[in-house]
């Protein structure tokens, strides 16, 4: 029941080994400036650690950033672990370099949205505002 006044809770994490964190840090600031509660878990997060953070933080959204090309290996593992933890209603976003053909694959697996390079920040903010997690809505 938390009213719409309760801030949207977002966990952001870099999964895998790549250290490109310019994008995720810029997004973190924009979401925070838009009034959301943002937890940036940092670099080199394993799928297991990410899902623990999501559970601990009672997040509405999980944003994963990858610019390494390992998205088809790592994202399905995160989705699987979320499912096992009963966290299917957490919305999952992917940001980074994802080839066109892989975007559809990730969305079929259950990713809500893939944001590529050059996405305007207001577009990300609006998307998150428009979709609350079912159990929090």
């Amino acid at each position, binding site marked *: 029941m938390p009213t719409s006044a309760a801030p949207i809770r977002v966990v952001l994490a870099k999964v895998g080994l790549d250290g490109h964190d310019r994008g995720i*840090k810029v997004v973190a600031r924009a979401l925070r400036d838009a009034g959301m509660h943002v937890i940036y878990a940092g670099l080199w997060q394993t799928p297991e650690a990410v899902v623990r953070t999501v559970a601990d933080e009672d997040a509405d959204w999980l944003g994963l950033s990858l610019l390494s090309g390992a998205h088809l290996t790592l994202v399905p593992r995160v989705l699987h672990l979320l499912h096992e933890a009963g966290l299917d209603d957490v919305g999952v976003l992917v940001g980074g370099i994802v080839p066109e053909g892989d975007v559809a694959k990730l969305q079929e697996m259950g990713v809500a949205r893939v944001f590529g390079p*050059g996405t305007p920040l207001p577009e990300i903010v609006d998307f998150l505002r428009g979709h609350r997690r079912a159990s929090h809505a």
Partner: protein
Amino acid sequence: MATATDRSAVERWERENAAVPLRDQPPTTVSGVPVNALYSPESLNSFDPETDLGYPGQYPFARGIHASMYRSRLWTMRQFAGFGTPRQTNERFRFLLEKGQTGLSTAFDLPTLMGLDSDDPRSLGEVGRLGVAVDTLEDMHQLYEGIDLGQVSVSMTINAPAIIILAFYLANARNQEVDWSQLRGTIQNDILKEFHAQNEFVFPPEPSVRLVADVIEFCTEHVPLWNTVSISGYHIREAGSTAVQELAFTLADGFHYIDTCLARGLDIDAFAPRLSFFFNAHNDIFEEIAKYRAARILWAEVLRDKYHAQHEASWKLRFHAQTAGCSLQDRQPEVNLIRVAYQALAAVLGGCQSLHTNSMDETLALPSEHAVTLALRTQQVLAYETGVTNTVDPVGGSYFIEAMTRQMQQQGRQYFDRIEQQGGMIDAIERGFFRREIADAAFAYQREVDARRKLIVGINAFQESEESPIETLVIDETVEKNQVAALGRIKAQRDALAVGQALAKVRRVAGTSENLMPALLEAAQARCTVGELMNALADVFGRYDGAAKW
């Protein structure tokens, strides 16, 4: 200064200029620095061409580090390449040499960059994907097989495990009977910018810098033509810094390496000439040119006046440039060809010694052969068709360029002071100074783009509703399996006792102030892996957990 007639001309221009409204907001550089409507002799107070500008090849090297620059020798066209197994990358290297490339530049995959073996669980999905996987000396052998290492200069982009990879390279050269005195090339070996920007660090800052200094010390004595560090602003800029931050943080990193080596008792003139630099070539042509010039002037000044280097070679800042990956867009990717061409022009007008031009498809995937060829052709057109190489430093003396070069020097010095105020390089890293500065700049830039105060073709202006996809390189999924299998075979065949002894020796030496290179050379021959050696060093140095500062 100005005569009576000059004055009236200036006043008339000021009147006429003020009468016409600006096309849009007052212009700023890509870094957000305001730019005046006009630059004139008055923009250059007490500028003395003889001392402030000087001559090419002479202090303060504003006009370039060589007397005749590209009239005698073009820059080295050096395209960064690497993917898949060492054999696949070896094929790409031979392809590039055949197309007229004049030096090699090696990209390693993320597990190798982070010091992990291909069979490490954390490497899953990343083996051979963004670069070539190197686990053992065998891989190093395959990577450069059939290429004469005594002839071709080889650059290797790696940092945290740099000393290990260089040990493999030197061991391989020895096995190929190439004398180390003939080896020409560069190992990036610049760990400080990893803490500021790129995040490929493993050990804490101090032992990390010790490894950098071990490489400098060893090569100074044994591999005299090798560039021991490529002090890099490139990644700082890619992480979102301004041009001045790129310039200042990079030079400050260089000064810290110098301080470390001097504290060991090395002679400045013995090692300073083999320190090299690596800068970004971003969109703003004149800002970039001014950045390269300011970098040369500041480096020369500090090396001569603070460190008292006696040899001109120690004062000369030599640099590689790469066009800005972060400026490439995934919409209308062919337009990237044009961005890259202008960026390459800036690097050449700025006097670079070598250049990598990005391929148009790099926001989508690793470059295809077609895209790499076009990127190399871009440099060849610049070198042979445009005439920019005909005279030395064609932009020198431009009021605008000289005013910006001066401004960059002043702002660079201000950053040197601020770093000192933080307690020096290591303390500034620990306090998150660099990360905060860079993140603030990255955020400010993105806000400018979102507000359409900065326009990007295809992104917030001139979009196409329908785009035709371009063909991109697909990495074969069997690469990881093959590399892991090859590593398994080597581990099964090697002498386990020798491996254990070599690792124990590395651990022991790591705990002393002795140079680690000799122990690592032995470990390379014993077929110790990159991951095993990194673990041995981590046993002594510990691991650094990069704080998630934003």
